[in-house]
């Protein structure tokens, strides 16, 4: 019993000192990593802004103004007269009648 107590008395201070040193080293490393954190924050901001800009470009490209202007450029015109094709069951087009 006395022997076990002697071992504890010798080992515990060594353990305590070791843990204290490890804590100091880790704290030092963490304290020094603030610069890296700041750099990551800046990258996040840049990426967020880039994302906003790209979202804006997508919205701009899919706006009606752009679509109508692009359609006009490639020769589409607005329908002057609408025509409707009415399909009645007795007169199905060939494609509907023949599934093959």
């Amino acid at each position, binding site marked *: 019993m006395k022997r076990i107590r002697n071992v504890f008395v010798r080992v515990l201070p060594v353990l305590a000192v070791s843990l204290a040193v490890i804590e100091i080293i880790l704290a030092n490393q963490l304290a020094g990593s603030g610069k890296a954190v700041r750099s990551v924050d800046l990258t996040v901001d840049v990426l967020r802004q880039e994302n*906003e800009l790209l979202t804006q470009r997508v919205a701009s490209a899919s706006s*009606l103004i752009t679509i109508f202007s692009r359609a006009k450029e490639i020769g589409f015109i607005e329908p002057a007269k609408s025509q409707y094709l*009415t399909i009645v069951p007795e007169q199905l087009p060939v494609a509907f009648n023949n599934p093959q």
Partner: protein
Amino acid sequence: MARVLIGFSLIIVAFIVILFRLFYWQVYAGESLRLQASAQYYLEFTLPAARGDITASDGNPLVMNTPAYLVYAQPKFIKDTVQFAKLVSGPLGLDEKTVISELSEEGRIWEPLARKIDTETVDLLRLLKLEGLDFEPESKRYYPEASMAAHALGFVGSDQNGNDKGYFGLEGYYDRELRGTDGHIQIEKDVRGAPIVIGGEKRTGAENGRSLGLWIDRTIQRIAEKRLSEGIAKYGAKEGSVVIMDPKTGGILAMASIPSYDPLRYGSYDKALYKNPVVAGSYEPGSTFKVLVMAAALNERAVQATTVMDETGPVQVGDYTIKTWNDEYHGAQTMMDVIAHSSNVGMVFVGKKLGREKFIKYIRSFGFGKPTDVDLEDEISPELRRDNEWGEIDLATASFGQGIAVTPLQMTRAVSVIANGGWLPEPRMVRKTIDAKGKVIEIKPKQGKRIISRQAAEITTEMMIHAVDNGEAKWAKPKGYRIAGKTGTAQIPVSGHYDNTKTIASFVGFAPADDPSFVMLVSLREPSTSQWGSETAAPLFFSIARDILLYKGIAPQP
């Protein structure tokens, strides 16, 4: 003894001085000293909340955010103020002399030069590598569809403290929801200003604003704006408005008014243009009002579609003589004919049959005299006379829509009652809201109270279809569709009298009449090619209706 007193007095004086000094440090300068100390130990940032987007019914944005910058100068780092001002004033669109004078003022350590500057301009300024010039990210509104639906959307300006604030339209009405709540972060910093990871940190996250999903269909909105612009030019009108609503839900599908403004450059437009004429403007509805009086009379069984009145000439009401619009009289007329010929004399007959109390009751039931409570800023409601102020002549003129003022939205909602089978809808712009986490809250349409029976609504609808098919604008009607509608031409009151040369021409109707997908009101102020609604507003209504029916894929009946 004297020395003791002197010594004691000096101690008292010293004590008082120390007391004053402590008071100065602790109370008077306490807050600023605390901030100075805090600045030495902490990095503090405001985390700005992103303003919510506003999207059309198909999910495409009508308003969104785009990155921008606050450009500012720190005069103490500027070596040559004149050269600095010369280089920055051009890209920022500032006056060079003003910049020099602002930068030269004594004691200035931070000078904001311009706000909401786009990224391209900032990239250009960064290339100059000017000392004392810096940039703070912020965001600004971007409109992918340019000035589409400007009156309905409103714009974002600044409040007294320079913070973003929504004005007019949806931006004004939903400012609190769109704005969100800014966050705040406080982190311990090291000697180089970098954050200490294991240090203390206080963080309150920003809560981004809610986005709004609208009922507005951007294709229908575009059709309305394009056709209205063409119509105003063709008929030489001063102004014009179109409002299109789903009568079954009350959802506003399109809302257009001309002249309008660009919300991105709102500052360069006349402030009078900011208000939305559809909710903030009033007019006398003229003959379009007749269908409401007729619907009320049919509902009360005061008249039937086949009831005959004798239209032999003008009718005398007190000291006033009321004529038909063209001074033509058709003898025996059914109620169907009264609406088809838009007979003022016939409507005086209907008004009398309905009776004063019921007439007033129905005007109020159709929603006149109070706001529609649409979710838009600046809605007005022209006041109605008090019940005891309605004289015989007021009743007579109101039966054909003169002497009573309404807003275009009130009129559209009232006609929706006929279109949807008899109940009063609640007009809504916003269909759903979406919070920052993507949670969607649908705003369900409210079904208002029943105003007229389904049968009365159907008979009035048939009268309106008859009026369209036999009216003067029948040539413009899209072939193969049943469209219910009514023209209106009302003189504009000027200094207490009606000016015969100035009219508001309008047309209200819905299509397809048997299962309406929209109710639309078109109004033109002071058209110059013709003063009549049948020759101006009606053809414009039909051109818009044709485009909408085609867009919605509603085929004509063979």
